[in-house]
């Protein structure tokens, strides 16, 4: 058993650190930036949960605080993302790091077995990460935890010659707001912090003023060892910041900084600039390598580095009219219709922008605040009911757990959207009447529902599917829908509520006495002793 735990051997694992920045200027003037900091712990593999022995951990580049957590709870694969904003797939395309759901999302694959159960380790893990990243991950409890294995598959290499079962735990917290207090611990995990290298650019003042920004921590075990990828993405709007409404940008104008020092421990450090199709721009400085679509820069050889892009012939930026076609093959819109506090309709429309049909998995994980009524589910394309486009439907209603909580309900299905058409899915929902102690302090705000997830499905080619002809391609990456806000029946905890109570009581009293007067008759009954 100890053979599996490579860390137990006294050799210090080989550690390598890469950093990468991808910049994509978009047609609507926005600039998408994606930082990826990868640390590879060569030759290492996750701790087996059945192995009680704890060994010393010696890291040079790999962050110790995270390593300890991973070791303690024997996590094979971990994905944490903290995002703010709504990723606009239509105009920004697929993100470089796919986890872009609003708020916090945490999922982990853990090997089963050992003295502690998976759920106990999951609880420990989320509390430890909550402490590490200053985020309310502790509230990702059993009311929000589910296990949708096909949407979030295991990408790590499992333990060799061992049929250990693996378990997934997935939870989202859409109301989590990401801010500076999350960025600071994030930067501390980097070997050069934000003092050198690409992370030099991550100035909280600017990053948190972008249209969209998010942080991600991804750990998985590969053949080469344990890989930690720290990602930071931000979508800048230079037009908004510039006084003259121009779309020119530079590191200085976007981040208020330049890369003035290279990170000495980085084995590679590259910047990829995806050049736009439209010409008429000036770029400085000259790239170290370039092809038709990508320019490559290296901050190690060229410091200080301030990449700048300008459109000298453009007086002010004009938004393209008509707006450009969607950048992704599939556009999703999710809304909760209805104005009452007791019921509503969950409505999702999937628009295929391609000519060939698209098959995607659709996963909806809803806390027990709302109940889906599956018999009311309707699927139509252009007003015609098309139940044949839905397959492999799995629905788990909210379960009452041992501690009195209700688990989330999950709906997972595979949908086939015909080419150049819109599939509409609607399900009636009823909203729960909460106990008054269950309401949060801001009761009148409503409750956030986590985003739905569209995930790629493996298309079976052996003719197992009944309508294999319809199943075209799938999507390359997961798509997250925006979150929803649901209004539950909320008592007004303030003055008018008291007034209503009081007037109802008065009315009842008056009604009671009048009813008494009308129906009761007072007579004297003679009693015999």
């Amino acid at each position, binding site marked *: 058993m100890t053979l599996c735990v490579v860390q137990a051997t006294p050799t210090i694992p080989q550690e390598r650190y890469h950093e990468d920045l991808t910049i994509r200027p978009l047609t*609507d*003037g926005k600039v998408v930036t994606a930082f990826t900091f990868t640390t590879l712990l060569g030759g290492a593999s996750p701790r087996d949960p059945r192995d009680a022995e704890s060994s010393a951990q010696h890291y040079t580049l790999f962050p110790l605080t995270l390593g300890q957590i991973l070791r303690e709870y024997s996590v094979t694969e971990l994905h944490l993302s903290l995002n*703010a*904003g*709504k990723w*606009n797939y239509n105009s920004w395309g697929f993100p470089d790091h796919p986890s872009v759901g*609003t*708020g916090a999302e945490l999922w982990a694959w853990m090997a089963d077995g050992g003295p502690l159960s998976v759920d106990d380790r999951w609880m420990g893990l989320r509390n430890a990460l909550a402490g590490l990243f200053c985020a309310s991950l502790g509230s990702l409890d059993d009311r929000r935890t589910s296990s949708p294995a096909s949407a979030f598959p295991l990408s790590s290499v499992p333990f060799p010659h061992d049929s250990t079962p693996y378990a997934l735990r997935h939870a989202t917290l*859409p109301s989590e707001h990401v801010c500076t207090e999350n960025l600071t611990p994030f930067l501390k995990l980097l070997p050069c912090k934000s003092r050198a290298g690409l992370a030099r650019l991550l100035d909280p003042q600017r990053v*948190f*003023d*972008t*249209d*969209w*920004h998010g942080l991600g921590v991804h750990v998985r075990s590969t053949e080469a060892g344990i890989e930690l990828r720290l990602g930071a993405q931000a979508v800048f*709007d230079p*037009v*908004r910041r510039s006084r003259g409404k121009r779309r020119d940008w530079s590191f200085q104008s976007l981040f208020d900084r330049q890369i003035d020092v290279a990170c000495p421990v980085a084995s590679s450090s590259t910047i990829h600039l995806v050049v736009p199709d439209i010409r008429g721009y000036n770029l400085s400085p000259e790239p170290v390598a370039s092809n038709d679509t990508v320019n490559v820069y290296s901050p190690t050889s060229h410091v200080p580095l301030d990449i700048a892009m300008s459109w000298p012939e453009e007086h002010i930026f*004009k*938004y393209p*009219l*008509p*707006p450009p076609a969607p950048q992704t093959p599939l556009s999703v*819109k999710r*809304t909760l*219709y*209805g*104005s009452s506090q007791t019921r509503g*309709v969950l*409505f999702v429309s999937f628009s295929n922008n391609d000519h060939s049909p698209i098959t995607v998995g659709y996963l909806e994980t809803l806390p027990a605040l709302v109940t889906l009524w599956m018999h009311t589910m309707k699927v139509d394309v252009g007003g015609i009911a098309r139940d044949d486009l839905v397959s492999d439907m799995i629905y788990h209603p909210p379960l009452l757990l041992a501690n009195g909580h209700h688990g989330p309900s999950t709906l997972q299905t595979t949908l086939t959207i015909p080419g150049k058409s819109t599939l509409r899915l609607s399900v009636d929902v009823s909203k729960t009447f909460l106990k008054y102690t269950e309401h949060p302090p*801001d*009761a*009148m*705000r*409503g409750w*956030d529902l986590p985003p739905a997830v569209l995930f790629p499905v493996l298309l079976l080619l052996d003719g197992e599917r009944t309508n294999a002809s319809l199943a075209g391609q799938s999507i390359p990456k997961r798509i997250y829908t*925006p*979150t*929803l*806000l649901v*209004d539950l029946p909320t008592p*007004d905890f*303030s*003055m*008018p509520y008291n*007034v209503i109570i009081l*007037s109802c009581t008065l*009315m009842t009293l008056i009604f009671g006495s*009048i009813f008494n007067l*009308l129906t009761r008759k*007072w007579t*004297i009954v*003679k*009693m015999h*002793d």
Partner: protein
Amino acid sequence: MDRIWPRRQNGNVVRLRRRKNATALIYRNLSKITTALLATGYLWMTLIPIPPLSQGVYIDENALQPAQVNTNWNWQDVHQADLYLHHLEGLRDKNATSEQRASFIRDEFAKLGLSAATQNYTFMTPSSNITGINAYAILNSPRTPGSEAIVISASWLSEVGKEPYNLRGIATVIALAGFLKNYSLWAKDIIFVIGDNYLDGIHAWLNAYHGTIPQNLDTDLLELTSGVIWNALNVDYSGHSFSHLGVFFEGLNGRLPNQDLINSLRLISHYTAGVPLVLYDHLELHDAPQNSLLTSAPEFMKRSPQLREFEHRARNVKRHVSYQARGRPSAPHGLFHRFRIDAITLYAIPADGPHGFFALGRIIESTLRTSNNLLERLHASFFFYILTTPATFMKIGTFLPSAVLVAVAMIFSGLGRWVEAGWVQESSSELQPQGKEDDGKAANATIATVATLQPTWRPRQRPVIPVITTICVTHCIGLLAFAMIDTSCFLQNQVVASWILLIALGLVPQALLTIIPSHPPETAPFSLLLQSFNLCLASTVISITSLLNFSLAATLAVTLGIPLICSHVFFRPSQTSTSHFNKPCQLAVHAAYWVLTWGWLLLPQEVEKAVWNWEVLGVWFAPFVCIVYAPLLMQAGLVGLSVMNEMLLG
């Protein structure tokens, strides 16, 4: 036990006696009590505008922080608004179609980098089909999940002032869209809606946004959506410049927005832009002395500050009641309330100056910042209130009792009739005090003694089936009348049809009277029972309505109170004179009831408007009048007629 029993019995006897006495006292003085309640109720209603009943407004929600920000709306943005206005005036002068207008507005939004779209809609109503095209755009605020939203809207038309087109309002909204996009501080998405026509555009848009598309609306779900809308500001700026900012707040079916929104606007308008805020388009009297009713009054009345104050407040209350009682939205903002959105209309009162786009833009910007501060929906302040002036309001407790007192008077007199119907007075001397035979009969004896002090009474049967049937029939007739009014052929030949309907409905009570079976001599008369039921029903209606829509309840209390309570008196032929002499007088009373019940049919515009409101906006006023109000008065007329009949029959 033996010692306790008698004591208990004694206690019960005392209680019974006390109760009997109290009931007897109330019954003896019933007419006095009813009169007193009625008088108090009506007096209270007339005193609603007096200053001591109002109190100063205040901000209840701490998060709002109105007028605490530095505004950035600048002359450059005013210039943009002027440019948009120029284009819009061109469209107006070209008599552009809805489609041209909507696509122009959509393109302007898209040029600003917002996601914009249009919405076609058609309302099918009995009289005509109403079509239009709305344009809207959504500003997806940076960093936000987009689950909450604020709406800024403007309609193409304006119905408040003299100028029919709300061009400056629309120009303000488009210029604001470009301006607001430059800031990352918005915590909620901002939706810009330009509704076609006056009310129906925004109504169609709201229904499509919330997925509640009614049967008679032909439109598709919106292409672009955002989150839950919390607040909405509707802009109505049709004049050239403005001197005061008016606020309209009454919504569909009498719903009001949270008062915090109006109070915030008042502070912002005053402190941020220096524009005085008034209610509706009612200028203060010192600003517009020609509006006063007191101009023809004697000099001492004209000079009295109290009277002038009273008049000003009474005007505001009257306007409020006229909107709320009819369930009519006072401006397009009122359509939002149905979806639990707090909304108001900012109306720039046309004048030669001194304010324009600059002041209005700053006010809206600051109000948006205030709404943006909200962490929860507005819930702290009042939803039931009467604004007597922008700075003073009445809490529900200071106006609700006035209508309820009238309702209480009605139910008292209804119950009085019920008791009256149950007993018949006898002049026999059969029932004599039996004397005190033993302790057990003491109570009986006391009651008997009480009875002998007054004329002797004998219980009689109260047959309620014919009465309840009659009441149901009258309400069904009301329903039929409503079904007739709500047809295209009625609305097309409105004048003729109104007269036919009016005469037919006037004959209904006479016809009903002939089929009512005459009551056997030992039972209560029909008229007494009908009046009792009629009063109790009307009182219940008023009390319940008063909690939902005070203005409607107060209007009902005024129109129903005395006619229902006194229906048996008005029609009764006086004992001394001959019936022949009384005929014209009774005819007049009859005609008065008839006019009060159905006379509104002769106000064609009012009827048309109410039916339109019901068909398009779903305002309950038209069916309420036909199915509840008119039948109640019809029953009262029937009471009078049957009183007359019973008198003639002997």
